[in-house]
């Protein structure tokens, strides 16, 4: 233990009403890829923030490189050699890569020198990146490279990565893993936080599992199955979504030639999207974030109108109908952003139940709200979907991500939709809540509804979908049956065939030269 890079001893941090970290102790060896596992609310973020100097522990100590380590702020942590890539990027769309990197550095060198070192680092670690490009034009994978290169320029001894692959294609994940392994082989330690157990098994040599703030296990993830890891996290046997291959019925939703201009400068236009979903079917739409997922959901939910003749529900053109008219006909949706879009953070769950439930649940009478009925509806969502909350009067913003997501999805499912469109149903949701949500989606399809799941989590899509397609720059790939698809094929669909073509041409040109 004495030669460990970072040793945590009895770290404890309590917030009012909850002990986020309870005497957490473990060690990270130099050059090791160490996984930190745990459900949402298990205390991973608090622990990582403590290491990065954002949170001061109530008790316990850290030893970093043989010296006591108690960073007062992230700057001190960075100075000591700790770098962190956050789950949410903090980049300015309108600035160039180099300008963004300079903004995140404590002592940025001159612009020219910085560009040179960005090129050096990005080449050395196989992360191609042009310092002069504007970040707004980059894909999510490229944006993440900006964050990683920013960290690497500081020559960290410990690199913390929080859910880094949630926005990447399988190919991009392979590039990232290659980089991380190279870093580790050079002696940099990596603390890797993820929900994706297969990734952890592929990448990490050591794992610490947190549950309710306590370390419940340490193990070598390569020797465990994903299921064993998940059960360590949850503490119970995990319920795996089950499905029976139902017969699919009539076409319920038909999208034909749907094109829409980008809603803003950094949005994505939808280009000639055509697909159909049948009763009893789950259609998965994969793709890297920012390829038109939000725009597609808005067009289906009615937040933006679709051109006449491009959207049909049971044969009826619904493209020019407003959201509530579509709800009345049975087309329901749940957007990705839980707070602020699917739910209003400062409003109670009752009010949030009213937000989409008014039409189908008849929560108002001639414009006057039936609060009692709205409360009952909120309560039944809470009970049916096991939403952990003091009651329907709690503000939506006070719920944890997973619980709010269960509420948001449950609110729509209890309204018995004929067609249900959901974007990122389990994003940032812990394993047991995710399993419950997926099961609910399968049950919904089983009961005869058509379900469209837009997600960046391929494992999830492969688990629950009958058919699969992917969005790329607002175009949709031809629909394929999900069974029998290889991960490579999926990656090609996500990357868009035209990309591959360009790459091939480039490769050929290079070979000829």
């Amino acid at each position: 233990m004495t030669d460990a890079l970072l040793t945590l001893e009895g770290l404890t941090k309590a917030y009012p009403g909850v002990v986020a970290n309870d005497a957490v102790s473990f060690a990270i060896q130099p050059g090791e890829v160490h996984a930190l596992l745990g459900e949402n609310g298990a205390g991973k973020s608090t622990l990582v923030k403590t290491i990065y100097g954002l949170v001061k522990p109530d008790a316990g100590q850290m030893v970093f490189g043989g010296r006591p380590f108690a960073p007062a702020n992230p700057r001190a942590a960075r100075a000591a050699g700790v770098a962190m890539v956050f789950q949410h990027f903090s980049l300015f769309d309108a600035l160039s890569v180099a300008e963004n990197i300079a903004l995140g550095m404590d002592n940025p060198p001159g612009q020219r020198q910085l560009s040179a070192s960005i090129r050096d680092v990005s080449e050395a670690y196989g992360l191609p990146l042009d310092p002069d490009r504007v970040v707004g034009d980059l894909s999510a994978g490229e944006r993440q490279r900006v964050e990683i290169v920013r960290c690497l320029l500081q020559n960290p001894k410990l690199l913390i990565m929080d859910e880094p692959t949630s926005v990447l294609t399988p190919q991009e994940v392979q590039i990232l893993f290659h980089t991380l392994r190279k870093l580790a082989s050079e002696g940099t330690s990596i603390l890797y936080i993820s929900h994706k157990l297969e990734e952890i098994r592929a990448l990490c040599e050591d794992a610490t599992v947190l549950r309710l703030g306590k370390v419940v296990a340490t193990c070598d993830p390569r020797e465990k199955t994903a299921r064993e890891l998940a059960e360590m996290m949850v503490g119970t046997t995990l319920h795996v979504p089950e499905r029976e291959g139902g017969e699919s019925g009539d076409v319920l939703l038909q999208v034909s030639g749907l094109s829409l201009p980008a809603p803003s400068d950094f949005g994505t236009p939808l280009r000639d999207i055509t697909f159909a979903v049948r009763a009893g079917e789950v259609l998965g739409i994969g793709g890297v974030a920012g390829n038109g997922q939000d725009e597609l959901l808005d067009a289906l939910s009615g937040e933006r109108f679709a051109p006449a003749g491009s959207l049909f529900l049971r044969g009826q053109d619904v493209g020019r109908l407003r959201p509530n008219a579509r709800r009345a006909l049975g087309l329901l949706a749940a957007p990705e952003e839980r707070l602020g879009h699917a739910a209003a953070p400062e409003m109670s769950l009752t009010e949030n139940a009213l937000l989409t439930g008014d039409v189908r649940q008849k929560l108002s009478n001639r414009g006057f709200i039936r609060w009692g009925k709205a409360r009952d509806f909120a309560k039944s969502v809470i009970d049916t979907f096991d939403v952990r909350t003091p009651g329907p009067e709690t503000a939506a913003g006070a719920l944890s991500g997973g619980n709010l997501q269960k509420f948001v999805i449950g609110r729509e499912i209890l309204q018995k939709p004929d067609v249900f469109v959901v974007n990122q149903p389990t994003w940032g949701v812990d394993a047991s809540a995710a399993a419950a949500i997926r099961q609910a989606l399968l049950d919904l399809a089983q009961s005869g509804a058509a379900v469209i799941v837009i997600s960046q989590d391929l494992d999830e899509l492969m688990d629950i979908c009958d058919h699969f397609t992917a969005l790329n720059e607002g175009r949709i790939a031809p629909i394929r049956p999900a069974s029998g698809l290889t991960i490579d094929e999926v990656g090609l669909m996500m990357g868009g065939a035209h990309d591959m073509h360009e790459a091939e041409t480039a490769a050929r040109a290079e070979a000829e030269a």
Partner: protein
Amino acid sequence: MRFRLEKRPAPSQLLLALTPLFAVLATMIAGGVMFWSLGADPLEAIRTIFWDPLFDETFSAYSRPQLLVKAGPLILIAIGLALGFKAGIWNIGAEGQYIIGAVVGAGVGLAFYPTENRLIFPAMVLAGAFGGWAWAMIPAILKTRFGTNEILVSLMLVYVAENILASVSSGLLRNPDGMGFPGSRNLARDYPAASNLEIFAGSGMHWGVVAAFIAVIFAYVLMTRHKMGFSIRLAGEAPKAARFAGISPTRLVLFSLGTAGALAGMAGLFEVAGPAGQISIDFNSGYGFTAIIVAFLGRLHPIGILLAGLLMALTYIGGELAQLMLGMPAAAIQLFQGMLLFFLLAMDVFANYRIRIRSREVA
């Protein structure tokens, strides 16, 4: 040294409820200093403004009814404004809607002069509401059709309305028996069918005050029980969620600007047919702007606005008294009212944020 504002994770509800009170206290203190620097006894000045209008034996007979006379239009206008403010729609031009309401309403009344009929006054009220509504529809339609900024348009229309007022008081609506002086016939004095007199003598209660109380109840029910109130709150708190819920931003803009305009127009009519009596060049006295303070002082809540309107009316009357008794300049009184809004907003910041002081770090 460097100051930094840090958002409080959970602002105390008690603190939020008490901020108007703290704001009033801070205004009294800062106002006291201002009055002292103007050569008056600060305590006497504060007493003259807040206490004498209601309880002084000499003045209260005149000024107590004035409380309702002044509070009526403030509350009526502020109730309408608050609907928009809650939804994030900023109508700054209530003063203009108030003027046009008065001009149109008085115009309808004067057109019937000297016919006596019970229906004339109700018709004037409707015409006043229509005038204010129509004036507010200009920024509303420009916003929904062309995406213009309602703050600028509604504010600029105030100056247009002031010019229309000046024009009609020396032209279209000028009193034919007025020997060429600008200003219309006096509705309150000379035309009983069109006059808005006190309902109970000496109370200050005229139909405009009744309308204000009705508006408070109407707004309260709307905000707590009706879908439109829910839509307004949702649009203000989470605009994207409002779009998802299927709320049409166009409808919200038309409704909230229209309602605010109609209420302001009615307030103008009640004023011109009662306390003011006639259309004249200097008919408007800034109620439309002061109502913005009233709306925020009342936390955009109907009951809060009722109380804030009464408080603001008190500073008006007390301010006049202070001008009269202590020789304070009118500007000092306006400054005093401005302080009230300033302190309220400042206290709000402190209730929601806390100040962190950090010594400058070496980069």
